[in-house]
């Protein structure tokens, strides 16, 4: 497997700040993997995303130590403009992710492709496809400034995936969405994974991470404290130390274990609970 994202001893401090926001972070992510970054507020997740996208150090100055390598090329050798096609980044705040020069959602989504110089005919086909995929066809003629938070979040996601980048960095894409909308977004992310994209997701909804992600990176106060396959990280007793939420079923299972119930393994998805309790015959109600 080729390594898509490779960080070696990366530390970063914002300009005019005394403290390092990222401290000595090293990890590598293979092509086609879906990794989730979890951690409490202020643990450096968004800054890490900015680093992978190249906004650190190309946009935000400050001190960056260590090496960031994206697709075999050092970050310092990229120009910011070249990265647009390579790494797509959907931000946390959906209210700012509007280009501000387009009158309707269709053109808003097309904006990135226009900037990449894609021929007009192809733009139309690709935008149609993405609008359908993200289920925002009904919004196509609306003004992007007049959308609700959840609608903007979908438009923002659509505007990035339409550009078809190899790496997708997605920072809390479902903060404004209801449970159904959230599931839909995760379905889209899974589809992107099936298309071979390398995905990095920041998210607080652990149940969904347990269901969809391959690997988990745990951030705590600027350090990368744990990393590995999702199941192993959740099962590791160290995880509890960082006071990050477990998937609900894992939390229940751990409680049961504390009370003396024997478990054959730590379940992370709802449907695994019965099996972990060695009661495979019991029907499960959702």
């Amino acid at each position, binding site marked *: 497997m080729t390594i898509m994202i490779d960080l070696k001893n990366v530390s970063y401090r914002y300009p005019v700040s005394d403290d390092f926001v990222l401290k000595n972070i090293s990890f590598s992510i293979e092509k086609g993997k879906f990794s989730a970054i979890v951690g409490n507020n202020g643990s450096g997740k968004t800054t890490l995303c900015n680093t992978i*996208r190249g*906004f650190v150090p190309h*946009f935000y100055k400050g001190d960056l130590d260590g090496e960031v390598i994206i697709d075999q090329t050092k970050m310092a050798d990229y*120009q*910011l*403009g*070249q990265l*647009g*096609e390579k790494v*797509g*980044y*959907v*931000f946390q*705040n959906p209210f*700012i*992710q*509007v*280009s*501000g*020069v387009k*009158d309707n959602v269709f*053109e808003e989504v*097309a*904006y*990135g*492709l*226009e*900037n*990449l*110089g*894609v*021929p*007009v005919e192809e*733009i*139309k086909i690709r935008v149609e496809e993405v609008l359908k995929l993200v289920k925002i066809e009904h919004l196509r003629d609306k003004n992007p*400034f007049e959308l609700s938070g959840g609608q903007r979040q979908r438009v923002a996601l659509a*505007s*990035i995936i339409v*550009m078809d980048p190899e790496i997708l960095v997605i920072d809390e894409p479902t903060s404004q969405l209801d449970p159904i909308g959230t599931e839909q977004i995760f379905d889209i992310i899974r589809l992107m994974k099936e298309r071979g994209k390398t995905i990095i997701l920041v998210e607080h909804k652990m149940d969904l991470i347990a269901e969809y992600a391959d690997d988990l990176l745990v951030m705590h106060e600027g350090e990368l404290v744990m990393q590995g396959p999702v199941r192993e990280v959740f099962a590791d007793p160290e995880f509890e130390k960082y006071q990050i939420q477990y998937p609900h079923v894992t939390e229940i299972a751990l409680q049961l274990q504390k009370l003396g119930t024997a478990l054959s393994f730590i379940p992370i998805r709802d449907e695994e609970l019965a099996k972990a309790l060695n009661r495979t015959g019991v029907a499960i109600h959702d």
Partner: protein
Amino acid sequence: MKQNFLLQLHPLTKFYFSLFILVAVLIVPGYIFSFAVFPILVLIAILAGVTKEFLSIVLKALLSVLVIVFIMQMFFYPGDEVLWKAGIFSITQEGLDYGLLLTSRILAIGAVFILFFRMTEVRDFVKSLEDKGLPPMGAYVVLSTLQIIPEMRRQANTIMEAQKTRGVETEGSLFVRAKAFIPTLTPLILSSIASTEERAITLESRAFSAPVKKTSLHQLTKNSADRILPIVYVVILVGLLVWRFFL
């Protein structure tokens, strides 16, 4: 609905028309020609179906300027032929002529540009300039300003409401409202400055600075009138110049 022929013209054709009027008014001496331009513009506005907005903006924007300029010139332009005198004020023939000349030109030039912007969508005009070689950065600045003004107004209202819930008086006498202005304005300006950074990043994430030539969904077409009219303007202007200086 069939689009109006005049509105369908290429933005640059309309823009060249404005420049044509501007130059013609400056070439032709006397105020009669310049005043004659205005009825023509009104006629164009009627044909394009924008009469109401056109006249109301001309009234609001130009009338007061014209009156002031005219009065100033009439009283204070130096001249010998005194028509009327009261104390230190006097009206001279030269002042009257010059006042009429100046106001006629301001009226013609001002009105033609107001008409231009009534008949042309700014995004079309910017697009046509982009086709002519305006850098995308410049085009972005113009277009985003248009969209951001209503957005800022919305934000100002939000801040106003927020300050109200914190007990800042925003209604009442002029003085009270003026006092409420500062706690509203400061966050508005600061947040606007802060959001430029976010906007820059948003643009960057849409590959704004990608090192390729951009394409555009928005295309402008030129028809035969768009090719002929600019030539007509030039011919008329050359004719006017010849008439003015050689005959």
